[in-house]
C-alpha cells in the first residue's frame, strides 16, 4: 500500500512529542479505487467509485483506515452508533472523513471518547458527529467528508468528497 511518506513521517515526529496518531499509522484496508478517466472538461472532477469496506467490517466507534479517492489520500470510516449528518447504512451512522488536516496536512487522530478527529500539529478539533465541523482550530474548511453509499450487500462505496483535500489542487489527481 503506497502512502504519502512525508505525512507518515510527520505523524511519527508528533508521536515522539507526545501526540499519538493512530489512524495514520494503521494499515489501510478496503481500498479498491479504480483508475478513473476524467471526462473532458467536466464542471466537476470525476470521482472514482470505490468500495471501501462492508458494514460488517466496522465496529462501533473504532476507526477503519481507508484511502480515497486514491492511495495517497488517507481517510477513515466510522460507525458512530447514532444517525448523524452524512451518515449511511441501516442506522445512518456510518461516516467517512479524510485524516489529513485541512490546515497544514498533519495526520489526524480519532478520539473515541469525544468522537472527534484531533490534529497534533496545531490542536484543531473536528466533530465527526457534526459533519466534520471544526469545533475549534486553524483550518479554514470543515473536515472533508466522503459521500458514501451502501448497497444491498452492505458494501460501502465512496463517490465523492465535499471539500478540497489538503495537498492537492484537484481532489482527483
Amino acid at each position, binding site marked *: 500500500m503506497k502512502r504519502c511518506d512525508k505525512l507518515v513521517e510527520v505523524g511519527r515526529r508528533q508521536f515522539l512529542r507526545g501526540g499519538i496518531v493512530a489512524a495514520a499509522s494503521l494499515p489501510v484496508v478496503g481500498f479498491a479505487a479504480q483508475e478513473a478517466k476524467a471526462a473532458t472538461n467536466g464542471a466537476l*472532477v470525476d470521482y472514482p467509485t470505490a468500495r471501501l469496506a462492508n458494514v460488517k467490517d466496522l465496529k462501533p466507534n473504532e476507526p477503519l483506515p481507508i484511502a480515497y479517492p486514491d492511495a495517497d489520500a488517507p481517510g477513515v470510516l466510522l460507525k458512530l452508533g447514532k444517525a448523524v449528518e452524512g451518515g449511511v447504512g441501516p442506522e445512518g451512522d456510518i461516516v467517512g472523513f479524510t485524516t489529513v488536516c485541512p490546515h497544514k496536512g498533519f495526520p489526524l*487522530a480519532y478520539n473515541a471518547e469525544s468522537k472527534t478527529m*484531533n490534529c*497534533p500539529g*496545531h*490542536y484543531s478539533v473536528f*466533530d465527526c458527529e457534526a459533519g466534520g465541523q471544526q469545533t475549534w482550530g486553524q483550518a*479554514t474548511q470543515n473536515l472533508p467528508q466522503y459521500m458514501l453509499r451502501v448497497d444491498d450487500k452492505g458494501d460501502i462505496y465512496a463517490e465523492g468528497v465535499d471539500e478540497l483535500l489538503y*495537498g492537492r489542487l484537484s481532489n482527483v489527481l
Partner: protein
Amino acid sequence: MAYKRNVDRLPIIPADAKQHNVTCHYCIVGCGYKAYTWPVNKQGGTAPDQNAMGVDLSKQQPADSDAWYSPSMYNVVKQDGRDVNLVIKPDKDCVVNSGLGSVRGARIAENRRSDKTGTQQQRLEEPMIWRYGTWQPTSWADALDLVARVTARVIDKDNENDLFVSMFDHGGSAGGYENTWGTGKLYFGSMKVKHCRIHNRPAYNSEVHSTRDMGVDELNYNYEDYELTDTIFLIGANPLETQTNLFLNHMIPGIRNGAKVIVVDPRHTVTINAANIEAGKDNVLHLQINSGSDLALFNTLFTYIADQGWVDKEFIANSTFQGDVAQALDEGHPAALGGFDMARAECKMSLTDGAKICGVSEEDIKKAAEWIAKPKDDGSRRKCVTAYEKGIIWGNDNYRTIGALVNIGLATGNIGREGGGVCRLGGHQEGYMRPSDAHVGRPAPYIDQLLIAGQGKVHHIWANDHYKTTLNASAFKREYNRRTNMVKEAMDARAGATREELVEAIVAAIEAGGLFSVNVDIIHSQIGQAAHVILPAVESGEMNLTSMNGERRMRLVEKYMDGPGSAQPDCMIAAGIAQNLERVLREQGRNEYADQFKGYDWKSEEDAFMDGYHANTGKIVTYDRLRDMGNNGVQEPVVDFKDGKLVGTKRLYEDGKFTRHGREDKKALFCAGAWRGLQAPGKAAQRDNYRFLVNNGRSNINWQNWFLDKNNDFVADRFPYPFIQINPSDMAEFGLNPGDLVEIYNDVGATQAMVYPEPTARKNETFMLFGAPSGTQGNIVNAGVNELILPNYKQTWANIRKISDAPASVRGLSFKSFDYVAS
C-alpha cells in the same frame, strides 16, 4: 449542517503570475502572505515549470507544503478594472509565521469583495446621503459638500468642541500610517479637536498609560525572545486564539526548548491546554485567580521576589530612578511613580493576603515567583518574558495593575534583554502617526457619556462601531438613535429642498438637541444605521498600506486589487473633507480659518505616507525601500539605510536607558500602586447583586475580522450567534441545553447569547463572546471606568434567563470541548 464548499479543484497559479507582499491585516501578529494575481483566462499547469510554486502538482503534496492553497485562499477580484484570479497564501519565508496561516488570515482572499463569487457584497461602494427616508447614492463632491457645510456651522477657529470624532488609531485593516496621518492631520493639525475617542474605547487615551509613564514602551521585545527564554509569563491573554501564529511559531518552540509557562486567567483556555500538552503539566502553572484580583497577585509576587533577594541589583541601580517619588499621585497619575524601595513599601502584600484575595494557594504564588525570578543554580539570571493583554487592559484598576506587572520586569532586570521583555500582546497592528494630541488633556473627556448627555452637534466616525463594541451600550444606542433620528426627521421634512435649505434644517435640528452623524467605513456598520452621510473607504490590499506588528516590524502591504466602486483610502477621504472645509470657509469669508486646511494636495496614499511617517521619522523609510524589505520588513525604530537595506532595532532598551516617559535621566520608574479592590464605580455592587460573572473576550475564528465574517458562510455557520460558556451544572439548574438562547441582564441593560457547555468553567463564572453583531456584550457593561477613562469590560456580573430553545440554525452545531486531546 456543517458548511461545505463542495469545491473539488482550484485554478493553478501560473509561473508568471504577479506577486505582491501582503501582511495579514487582522491581528497584531501580522503574518506574512503573498498575493498572486493573474488574468481569468489563463491558468497554470501541474508541471513544475507551469506553476508559481515550481513543483509537480500532479502529486499529493506533503504536510507544511508551500504548494497548496485552500478554497478560502482563492477569489476572483478586480484589478485595474479587469477580473483577475487571486490567491493569497501564507509566506514560508516570513520570520513571523514561517508559512503558517491562521483561521482568519487564510481567509483574506475569500473575504475580498467579488462580483463573480459574490463575497463581501456588503462592502460600501458609493457615498450615500440620507434622502427620502433612506440612504441614497451620490457623488463624493455632493457628500463632502454636505459634510463640510454642516461641520463648518458648528466649528470655529477657537472652539471646535461641538465636533465629536471617533477615529481608529491602529494599523492593519483599514488603519495604518497613511490613514492615521490623514485623520490626524485633519483633526489634530488643521483643527485641535478635543472631543474625540478611539475605535475601542470611549476616550482618546493610551490603553497602557502606566508602563509608558514608567519609561517602558509596551512593545519592547522581539518575538524570538519567546524561543530564548526560561519562562513565559502570560496574563489576561489567550495567544493561541488571539495571536495564533505568535503562539504556534514562537511560544511553542520556546516551550519545546524547555521554557516553563505561567498563565494568569480566571478561565481555562486552549492556550493553557496546548501548553500542558507541549510542556507537561509540571511545567505549566495556571493561576486561576478571582476576576479582577491581578494587582494583588502582582504585588504579592513583587514583595516575595524582593524579600527573597531575587532582584537584579545592578540593573535597578543603573537603569531605574534612584530616590523616592519622581511623579506624585494626581488626577492624571492614579499611582505615584518613583524608586524601587518606595514602590516596594507601597505595594507590600504578604503571601497570605495575596492568596486570600486572589483565591489561589500560597504555594502556587511561590512557585510562580520562583519560575519568574529565582536565579539558576549557577547564580545566573533567570530569563522571563512577560506578556499581557485585554484581561488586565480591560480589567480592574488598569493603571496600577499594568504598573505592578512592569515592576516585576524591572526588579528582575527582564526588560531590554534577550529572552525578556514586558509587553502587551496587542489587538490590531499599530500604525500611529499624528500631530500631538496634548490638547485633548489627561484624563481625556469621556466621549460616550458626553454624547449620552446631549453634547456634540456633529459626529465624524472613522471605522468605529460603538453599537457593537462600546460599554454601557444599551444607554448609548438609545440616546444616539434618538438624537440622530431628530436630524433624519428634519432632513425628511425638507426633501427636495436646496442645499442651503437642507443645511438650515439640519442645523435647526442640531440646535434642538439632535446630532449629525457622518460615517466613514468599509461596510454599513450598526452605528452607520444612524448616519446621515456615509463615506465608503477601502481597506488593506485595495490601497498601499504600512503598519507595524507586535514586535514593531513594519511592512508595506502592496495594493493588489481595486477598491469597491468609488471607495477611497481614509487618508484621501480626510484630505477631501479638509479641502471642502477650506472651500466652504473661504466662501463664508473665514479666510484665516480656511488657511488651516491647506496642505492636503496628495495624489495618493503614498503622498500621505511621505507627508506623515517619512517626514516625521528621519526621512529614511520610503515605499520603495520597504517593498524591497519584503514580508520581513524592518523593526522600528528605523535608524538607517545602509547597503541597500533599512536598518531597524531588534529590541528596545538594550542599552538600559528608558525613554518612553521622556525623562532626561532615562531612568525607569517603579509604580507604587497598592491594592484597593474593584476600582471602577459600580463594579463591586454589581458583583454583590448578580449571580454570574460574565467574563468576555474573543474567539479564534472571528477575532478582529467579525465585521467581514458576519457575511462569511464558514464562520457564520460555526457561530451564528455569540456563545456564552456555562458550567454544565449551572445549565442543569436553569434547564438549559446546548444552543439554547439566553437573555443576560443586569442593572444597566440586557443582551442575548447561545449557550455553550464548558465543563472547565467554574460555577457562576461564564464567558461571553465580545463584539458580536447579534448580541452586544457591552449592553451589560456599566458606565464605570477606571481612572483615565479605561473601560472595565471584564468585571461584569449579570443574571441569566432562558428565552428560547436552540433555534434551527444551531441544532447541527458542534458543542464539544475546544480542547485538543492527544489520543
